[in-house]
């Protein structure tokens, strides 16, 4: 389109044959400007799920294609923890007594957990640090853009026995038949499900040790942002915003942070990036 516009302009202002070169230069300049304007917008807001994963992989090393990156990367181990304080912005989540809102409270839990994890040598990324509300896909994308990452989304329920905490993983995500080795965005969790269960078990054990009444084993639920995460991913839900006073929730903050940090520290030695079988070999997602 831009090329055609440039040529038309060139013909209008350089009508003689001696000015064809001028028209060509004008067309090239206009095309270049249009391309530079369009490309960043396409890469930021692309809606093709596979392309998003591909881009996330490419971000780790822009010089290589996603498949090449996956093939050549060494097992890097667990380095990064992406913490996701749920809700935010216009979505306050659960609302309870004393004006407690889930979106505010989870930020406190996330901040304390970040400190506890950094003390154990993890690099921690928060999906939000203020009162904003990234989309589910944006939250998953923070983990998908990393290598050697885990994803933990933090929630506070409006129901449940107060002073307890539960860990969830997604129940099942059908594996992809994609022969390229790229993971479809919708099924990003599939290759990581057994790792997610392992991580979830370890964190749940720590939580049930600290908070009486919490279940001993992890639960399954199709939590939206876990399905699109290409990393071991769990949801931690704390009960509840219906506490009699805010201090009850505040007292849980250090325990939850320690439990998550301890669970991750135990999980770290067992973490191996899974491989996906493709024709002619296997690749790491």
């Amino acid at each position, binding site marked *: 389109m831009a090329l055609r516009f440039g040529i038309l302009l060139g013909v209008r202002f350089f009508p003689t044959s001696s000015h064809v070169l001028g028209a060509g230069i004008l067309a090239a300049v206009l095309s270049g400007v249009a391309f530079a304007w369009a490309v960043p917008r396409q890469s930021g807001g692309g*809606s093709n*799920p596979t392309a998003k994963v591909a881009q996330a992989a490419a971000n780790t090393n822009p010089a290589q294609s996603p498949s090449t990156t996956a093939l050549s990367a060494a097992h890097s181990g667990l380095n990064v923890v992406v913490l996701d304080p*749920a*809700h935010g912005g216009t*979505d306050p*989540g*659960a*609302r309870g007594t004393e004006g407690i809102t*889930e979106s505010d409270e989870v930020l406190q839990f996330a901040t304390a957990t970040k400190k506890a994890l950094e003390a154990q040598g993890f690099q921690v990324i928060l999906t939000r640090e203020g009162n904003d509300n990234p989309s*589910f896909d944006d939250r998953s994308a923070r983990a998908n853009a990393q290598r050697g990452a885990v994803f933990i989304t933090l*929630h*506070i*329920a*409006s*129901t*449940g*026995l107060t002073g307890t905490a*539960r860990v*969830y993983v997604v129940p099942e995500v*059908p594996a992809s038949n994609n022969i390229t080795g790229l993971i479809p965005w*919708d*099924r990003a969790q599939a290759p990581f499900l057994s790792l997610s269960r392992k991580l979830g078990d370890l964190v749940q054990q720590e939580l049930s040790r600290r908070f009486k009444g919490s*279940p001993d084993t992890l*639960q399954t*639920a*199709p*939590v*939206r942002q876990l*399905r699109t995460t290409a990393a071991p991913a769990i*949801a931690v*839900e704390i*009960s*509840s915003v219906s506490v009699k006073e805010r201090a009850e929730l505040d007292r849980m903050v250090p325990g939850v942070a320690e439990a998550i940090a301890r669970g991750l520290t135990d999980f770290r030695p067992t973490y191996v990036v899974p491989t996906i079988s493709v024709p002619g070999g296997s690749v790491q997602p």
Partner: protein
Amino acid sequence: MTPKWTVWLGGVLLAAVIAAALYFPALRRRVNQAKELTEKTAEQARRELLPVAPVSTGDPMVKVVMFWGSHGQEGELVPVTVELPLSRDPVLRTKQVLNTLLAGPVDAESRTLPPDAALMAFYILPDGTGVADFSDEIRTSIPSGIQSEQLAVESILRTLEANVPQVLRLKILIHGQEADTLAGHVDLTQLFRVNAKDAAGTQLDNPSPPGSKLPAPIRKAVESMRKATKR
């Protein structure tokens, strides 16, 4: 010299313009009020048009297993047997069963679904996929949280599994639309497996962004519900 009739005509036209200008704000107010009224009552009208509790007295009384929340064990479902006149038609039967589930148990604390939520429509596609369209209240009145949303969905699935074997899997819509989540947590873009017999050969692997990659029959059902909602 201007003819007398043109002066009269001009005067009448001028008066008409002034009257219209004076009436216009009131007219606009009325139109806005009528629009708001239409929007508010669209769902009510739909509920009236689609009777949600088709009960036939001629249907035989059948023992039905409903799954409601456990009073003693938090986060658990318990089967409760009730006797209902149930249709043999799987669509009517599903509506009767789900309406009973929505009506809730005697003990209100064992509810899994909000009391003001309603089943707006239900279809079964030829491949055994059920499409259930619930009113907005299922999203707005449910207690927020993974556990409560999971219990709500699980109670629907297990109740259908126990009572309507024709429904192999379920797609949940809210107000005729595909929803990303129930109330911010549980993923509704996927098909839920209802019946264990569906374990083999079923395409459950099509979670999709709203309105994009739905299988054709479900997309048609979603479209028809959207039209009904707009009407």
